[in-house]
């Protein structure tokens, strides 16, 4: 028989034992391991998800922060740039101001120097002139001159206008002391009586007179009474001349300052405008800036300075300006120009004044015909015109000073020569 029942039973038992064994050793541990792994993987996945979420959150946060930071940075950057810009502007302004101040100061100093020199020279000239005049007149004065002086004095007394006459008459009447007649030399008796007569006639009264000699009058006669003074003397003329010259000097300074304040900017503007017009006329071609500027300057100056002959052309040539900013560069130039011109102008005026003044006032001197002898400057008489006119204005200031001294000298010699002529 194929079936052995003992074997069957044994195999059933064997099989059940095997089931138990495998369950114990194989299925359970393996399944447990798989479960554990799955759990672990699930957990890890969950962790990963959680981490992902967290990472995303962090990333978002970070991004947000980054954006914020970026914004802050850009804002900061902007503010810093702005600050830097304003700071730059401020520094530039400061520097410009400082430069302006410095240049103004320097200019002022130069002006002062020139002014002082001018003043010193004119003062010196004045002194010299008066000293010479005084010496010459003193040398010339003599008794014969005194006679003539007395004649003039008497004529003056006669020709006195009403007001002075009244004033002096009043003074003479109220005077307790006799009127004092002072002269440089002792007056001869004839003259004394003539004066006495004229006085008596003029005031129609007996006037007590006391005669006195006063050499400081140089030449002339002076009537003093009770504070009132009627005088005709060379010293008086000289004093009034001196005063007039001093006034002239002051006026000259004033005129100089005014001219300086007025002139330059207006002139430059006009020149700039004209230059631009020329530039447009020439079809806006580059490269002709210097020529245009020159031409414009020439035209404008001709318009303005027609009466004045001085033409600052060479100076304009000496400075070819860059095309881009002609005005900016041109600015300082007219200032330097203007001064010497002004000086020349005032010189001319000065000259004229002194001429006229000398003519009118030096009449008595003319009469006595003072012969100036040995005037040292007369020898070095330079030709004033050529030196003052083409003055090299573009040159540095010290040269200007020299020029002005030269011109001042010329002036001096001129007036001297005039005096001489008279």
């Amino acid at each position, binding site marked *: 028989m194929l079936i052995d029942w003992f074997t069957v039973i044994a195999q*059933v038992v064997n099989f059940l034992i095997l089931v138990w*064994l495998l369950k114990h*050793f*194989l*299925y359970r541990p393996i399944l447990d*391991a798989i479960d554990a*792994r799955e759990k672990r993987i699930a957990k890890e996945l969950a962790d990963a998800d959680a981490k992902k979420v967290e990472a995303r959150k962090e990333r978002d946060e970070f991004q947000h922060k980054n954006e914020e930071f970026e914004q802050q940075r850009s804002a900061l950057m902007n503010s810093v740039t702005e600050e830097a810009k304003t700071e730059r502007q401020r520094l530039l302004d400061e520097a410009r101001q400082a430069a302006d101040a410095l240049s103004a100061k320097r200019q002022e100093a130069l002006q002062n120097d020139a002014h002082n020199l001018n003043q010193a020279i004119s003062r010196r000239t004045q002194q010299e002139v008066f000293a010479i005049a005084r010496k010459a007149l003193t040398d010339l004065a003599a008794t014969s001159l005194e006679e003539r002086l007395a004649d003039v004095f008497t004529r003056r007394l006669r020709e006195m206008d009403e007001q002075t006459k009244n004033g002096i008459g009043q003074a003479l009447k109220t005077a307790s002391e006799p009127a004092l007649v002072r002269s440089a030399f002792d007056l001869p008796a004839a003259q004394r009586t003539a004066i006495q007569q004229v006085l008596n006639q003029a005031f129609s009264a007996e006037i007590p007179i006391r005669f006195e000699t006063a050499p400081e009058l140089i030449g002339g006669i002076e009537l003093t009474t009770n504070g009132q003074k009627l005088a005709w003397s060379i010293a008086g003329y000289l004093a009034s001349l001196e005063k007039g010259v001093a006034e002239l000097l002051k006026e000259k300074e004033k005129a100089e300052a005014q001219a300086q304040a007025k002139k330059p900017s207006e002139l430059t503007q006009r020149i700039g405008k004209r230059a631009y017009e020329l530039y447009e006329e020439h079809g806006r071609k580059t490269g002709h800036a210097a020529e245009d500027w020159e031409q414009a300057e020439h035209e404008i100056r001709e318009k303005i300075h027609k009466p004045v002959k001085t033409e600052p052309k060479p100076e304009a040539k000496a400075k070819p300006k860059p095309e881009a900013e002609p005005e900016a560069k041109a600015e300082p130039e007219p200032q330097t120009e203007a001064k010497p011109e002004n000086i020349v102008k005032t010189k001319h005026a000065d000259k004229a004044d002194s001429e006229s003044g000398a003519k009118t006032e030096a009449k008595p001197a003319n009469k006595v015909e003072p012969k100036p002898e040995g005037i040292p400057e007369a020898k070095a008489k330079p030709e004033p015109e050529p030196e003052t006119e083409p003055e090299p204005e573009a040159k540095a200031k010290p040269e200007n000073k020299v020029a002005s001294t030269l011109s001042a000298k010329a002036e001096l010699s001129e007036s001297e020569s005039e005096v001489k002529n008279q």
Partner: protein
Amino acid sequence: MHLSPDEIIFWQSGFVKLNATIVYTWGLMAVLAVGSKLVTRKLSAGLQRTRWQNLLEIVVTGIDKQIAEVGMSQPEKYLGFLGTLFLFVAMASLFTIVPGYEPPTGSLSTTAALAICVFVAVPLFGIEDQGLGGYLGDYLKPTVIMLPFNIISELSRTLALAVRLFGNMMSGTMIIAILLTITPFIFPIAMSALGLLTGMVQAYIFSILATVYIAAATRVRKPKPAPAPEPEPAAKH
């Protein structure tokens, strides 16, 4: 020439005896148990694992998947029984490559024992799942008239299980033995390889049929209880 390893008897004392079937069965049991023990002694739950563990995991999860595919709701519950059936039969045929080995499944006693186990296990799992009444009620379906047929079907399929496996395994060894006498070279190797394939197929058939029987007994409550497929005669070579 013997048909069954039962006939090789090492020791006998009256009714009790030790034949080749029992001895080889013990040997298989020892190999399976010790092998499992060795591999599962240090299992890792992590992502890193030994190749042996990998192999066993593949085997176990494969069986598990097969059970689930038949329609069991809780494959782990039946894994011990059905998995052991498959592993035992498969190992018994696999070891035929060892010279001098006689597969225990080539004995009708062994296959009968396995069939009896299935025969007992099916009602046990059925009763456990749906209660005694529920399980016994199945025999009266669709009508009371079907009761004798159901009982006959129960018996006959158990017999079929036992005989099919026995026939296949016995025939395999028999063919090789016969062929060795006719053409001792090469051809027995081919037949031996074929025998291995047959053994694997038989192991699969045996365990899947057992699964189907148990499934039929337990998933009555499902809306469409699949009728237990009759063992196909095609399985026989």
